[in-house]
Structure formats: C-alpha cells, structure tokens
C-alpha cells in the first residue's frame, strides 16, 4: 500500500446556513480544498462524500453524484458514505484506502449536513434513526438519552456521586466552549467563551442527567479535503500531512453491548487499536486530538476507549486540566462538537481539517497548539456506538 497525504483542506462556517443548500455548502468546502491544494478540478479522479440525512433534509438521496455534477467533476466515480455522525470520517478513510491501493492519485473527500434547518423535533427524530429501530425505536430513545444512560452507568461503575460527575462533565463543556468561542468558523464563535460550571449544571435537562449545555447543537455545514499519493504530494505543497493509520469498527443494538455497559464500546476500542497499530504509534505519542464530544460524557468515554486514560480516569484527568490546549493531551482545541458545532455528515472531515491546520501551524490564535504538533488523531462516533472511525495523521511519513 502507498503512503497517502492530505494536501488541501476546506471548511464552511458552521451554524445556520441561511441561504445555501447542501450541494452549495459541499461545493464551497470542496473548492476551498482544491484551491488550498493547488490542484485543478479536472485532476480530481473520484469523490467521497459523507452525508447522513440528506433525504430528510432536502429530499435528496445520491448527493455525491450531484456534488460531482455541480463541481464539473462528473463522470468520475462519486459515492455517498453514510455512518450517521461518522459519515465523513468513513468517507475520508475510504478515500485514503483507494489512493493507498493505487487506484487514484488525487481525490476529494469530505461531508456535509443541513440539520439545524430541520428544527429540533424532526432532527431528533431523524438522528434517532441511527438507533436500532426495532427495539430502541418504540422505547423512544434519543441520542442525549443514550448518553444520559451512559453517564449514569459511569457514575455507578466508578462510584462517583452523580453531582460530582455532573460538575466534571460540565468542565468538558466549559473547555470546549472556551475554545469554540475563539474559532471563527465555529457555530458559537464569540459566544459562551466564559461559560461557568454552574450554568451547565443548572441549565434545563434534555435527558437525565444531561442538560442542554451538556449537548452539542444541531448544525449546518461542510468540510472537504484533497488527498493524494505521498509521492505526488510534494508537487503541490511543502507541508503535506500524512495519513499514518486508520481504523473503523461497528457495533450492533445497544442491548447487545458487552455486559450492557455503554461506557466501554468494543467498536471504539477495536477501531482505535486498528488505527494505532497501522500507524505504529501509541496514545502517549499523539500531540493533538479532535474527538467526538457530542455530549460532555461522550468526551470522557472516548478518551478511555481510545486508551488515553484508564477506565474511569478521564473525569479526574479533565478536572486536572490534562485535556486543555496546553495540557498533556490537548483535546478539541478547535471547540469540538460542543463549541464548533456538529453538522453530522461533515464532522469527521472538520476534525481532520482542524488537525491539519494545527500541523501546519495555521490554527487561529488561542487554538494553535505550541509547539506545532507532530502527530494528531481524530475520533468519530456514529449512532449509539454503531460506527466508529479513527484517523491518525502526521507531519512525516510512516516510520516503517
């Protein structure tokens, strides 16, 4: 397999897309990525697009073909990838695989979603379609509900009084909103930068014990990347970012999770291990991490599942500042899903965008990690642990 590099990145403003449709959002990000890479549209040999719910948002299925059409790329292969909130990550992973395999040299990958415009009731309904419909559907489970269940289990598993855990979870929201407020492309840019723990804990319950400020927002937005073979990358840029390893895992119905424990999803453990193994790296070597903080508790569970902290240790590590931008492992310096926003089909590509920006030293003030990170990682979760995907990136090629 060939080494693969990311040579161009694009990212729309996240939030409410007042005028643009999904196709236009994706095109905006894709053109930025192509221009950033310095490639011509005619050089793009395939398109890989994550989109979770376009059929419900705009009555559009098969969006990838139309994206290729709008960009003038057709008739090249263009495929939509759907893994709920991990849609873009699996699209990027597939793109990297095809380039590594030698099938294509230059490809576009990314994702788009327009979920904020759906409104909370309908968006919640369609998001819950990523639960196991026959058993979790009639129970009326929602995603905040799933993570509320996980939070209660976390408190029980590790004997943390719930009020204490809620305050530690709130620190995740405070941290990620502080970072998101500094990110001009974030949904909450300039907002909630000085959020207080009490405000998170005392905002209204969405699904016990999660409050509104434990939850990421619904969002519209798109992000896109240009990937190419490593041997071609230096033709286009002095600062390629290499894809060192990827992983993907899947899980079934919530009720089939081992021991009924929602805090230790096998899909994530397996996917992360696969990515670390391929990259030849360990968690301690990662300098920047963008992970799937759809809810505050989700950040803690993710850190443990990937092996950054032992089981039950992420809450205290967060309270200890270890996940701050200047901490042991900077987590979601871009604001994460909580502060940056979560257009679900775009999120994985957005996470990669921010890791690349960090590695080029181009992240905005207050977000850029110092020194410039050598190795970075993304973690994206789709459904209630149904689809997990990890990407490990580096400024130099694989060691082996």
């Amino acid at each position, binding site marked *: 397999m060939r080494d693969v590099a990311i040579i161009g990145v694009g990212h729309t403003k996240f939030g409410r897309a007042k005028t643009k449709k999904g196709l236009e959002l994706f095109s905006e990000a894709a053109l930025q990525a192509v221009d950033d890479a310095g490639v011509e549209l005619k050089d793009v040999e395939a398109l890989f697009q994550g989109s979770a719910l376009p059929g419900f948002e705009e009555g559009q299925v098969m969006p990838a073909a139309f994206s290729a059409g709008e960009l003038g790329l057709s008739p090249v292969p263009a495929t939509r990838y759907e893994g709920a909130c991990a849609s873009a990550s699996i699209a990027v992973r597939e793109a990297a695989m095809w380039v590594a395999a030698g099938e294509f040299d230059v490809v576009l990958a990314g994702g788009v979603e327009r979920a904020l415009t759906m409104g909370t*009731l309908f968006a*919640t309904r369609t998001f819950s379609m990523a639960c196991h419909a026959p*058993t979790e559907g009639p*129970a*009326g*489970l929602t995603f905040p509900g799933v993570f509320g269940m996980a939070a209660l289990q976390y408190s029980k598993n590790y004997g943390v009084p*719930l009020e204490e855990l809620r305050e530690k979870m709130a620190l995740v929201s405070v941290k990620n909103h502080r970072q998101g407020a500094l990110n001009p492309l974030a949904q909450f840019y300039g907002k909630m930068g000085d959020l207080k723990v009490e405000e998170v804990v005392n905002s209204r*319950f969405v*699904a*016990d014990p999660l409050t509104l400020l434990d939850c990421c927002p619904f969002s519209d937005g798109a992000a896109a990347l240009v990937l190419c073979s490593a041997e071609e990358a230096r033709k286009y840029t002095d600062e390629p970012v290499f894809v060192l390893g990827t992983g993907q895992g899947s899980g079934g119905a919530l009720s089939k999770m081992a021991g009924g424990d929602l805090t230790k999803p096998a899909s994530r453990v397996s996917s992360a291990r696969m990515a670390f193994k391929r990259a030849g790296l360990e968690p301690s070597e990662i300098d920047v991490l963008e992970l799937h903080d759809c809810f505050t508790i989700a950040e803690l569970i993710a850190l443990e599942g990937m092996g950054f902290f032992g089981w039950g240790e992420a809450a205290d590590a967060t309270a200890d500042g270890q996940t701050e931008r200047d901490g042991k492992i900077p987590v979601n310096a871009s604001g994460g899903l909580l502060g940056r926003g979560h257009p679900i089909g775009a999120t994985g590509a957005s996470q990669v965008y921010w890791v690349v920006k960090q590695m080029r030293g181009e992240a905005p003030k207050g977000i850029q990690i110092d020194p410039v990170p050598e190795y970075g990682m993304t973690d994206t979760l789709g459904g209630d642990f149904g689809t997990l995907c990890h990407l490990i990136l580096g400024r130099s090629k694989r060691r082996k």
Partner: protein
Amino acid sequence: MLTLSEYEEGLRSGKLLGLRCASCGGVTCHPMPVCQWCGGRSLERTKLSGAGELTTFTVIRVPSEGFEGEVPYIPCLVKTEEGPCVVGRLDYDAERATQAAQELLGKRVRMSGAYTYKGDKFSGGAHSCPVFEVTE
C-alpha cells in the same frame, strides 16, 4: 425460529420471548439469526421470566417527533436474569427517578407489560417494547 414481529407480538401478550442456543445454552433476546453469545445457529424458542436488574435509564424531556405527548418518559436498559439485556421503558415517576437516579441502578425489576408506539411514516408500522416496574 422467532422473528422480530413475533417477539413484539409476544411482548403485547405479556411474554418476553427469546431463543435458547443448543451449543452454549445461552439465551438471545431480542431474537437474532445467531446466538448472541457464541454465534451458534441451532436456536429454539424460549420464554424469559421477565425479571432482571435495572442497568441504566434516562428521563427523556426533549423527545423525537411523534413522542411529544409523552414527555417525560423513561427508556431503560435491563439485564434479564437469563443473561441478555433488553431496552424498554421503566414505569416510574419521572421526578422521583431524577432525584434518586443512582439508588435506582441495580434495582430488581420485572416486565409488567408492553408499550406500543403507533409508528410514523418512517417506522414501517407500530412497534412495541417491554415495560418494566421496580419490584424492590
């Protein structure tokens, strides 16, 4: 052989049905084409007692479209005494559940009936899940 539809029909007549594996003796519930413990394919229909332990729950206050009239309600995860976990609803006062969340975890529960959601244009008809009550 037990289809998901038959599993749901069982719930509506007050029975929690599953499949017992000829290879490992384990019980699979909800039904799947293979044993959830060993992957075995020789499975025979069995009836679970409906008793188990409350593994976790939540109180939904912001619902999906179609569930607006029901909030607050309590989805739960129950570990049955036969082994498999099932997702259902907990029949319990929502405000008391919020106050006593941690104490409720691990309590003995028993299936007391079924909840049937009438369905919407996406759900392919009505669907049912078990309802549990706290027995201690």
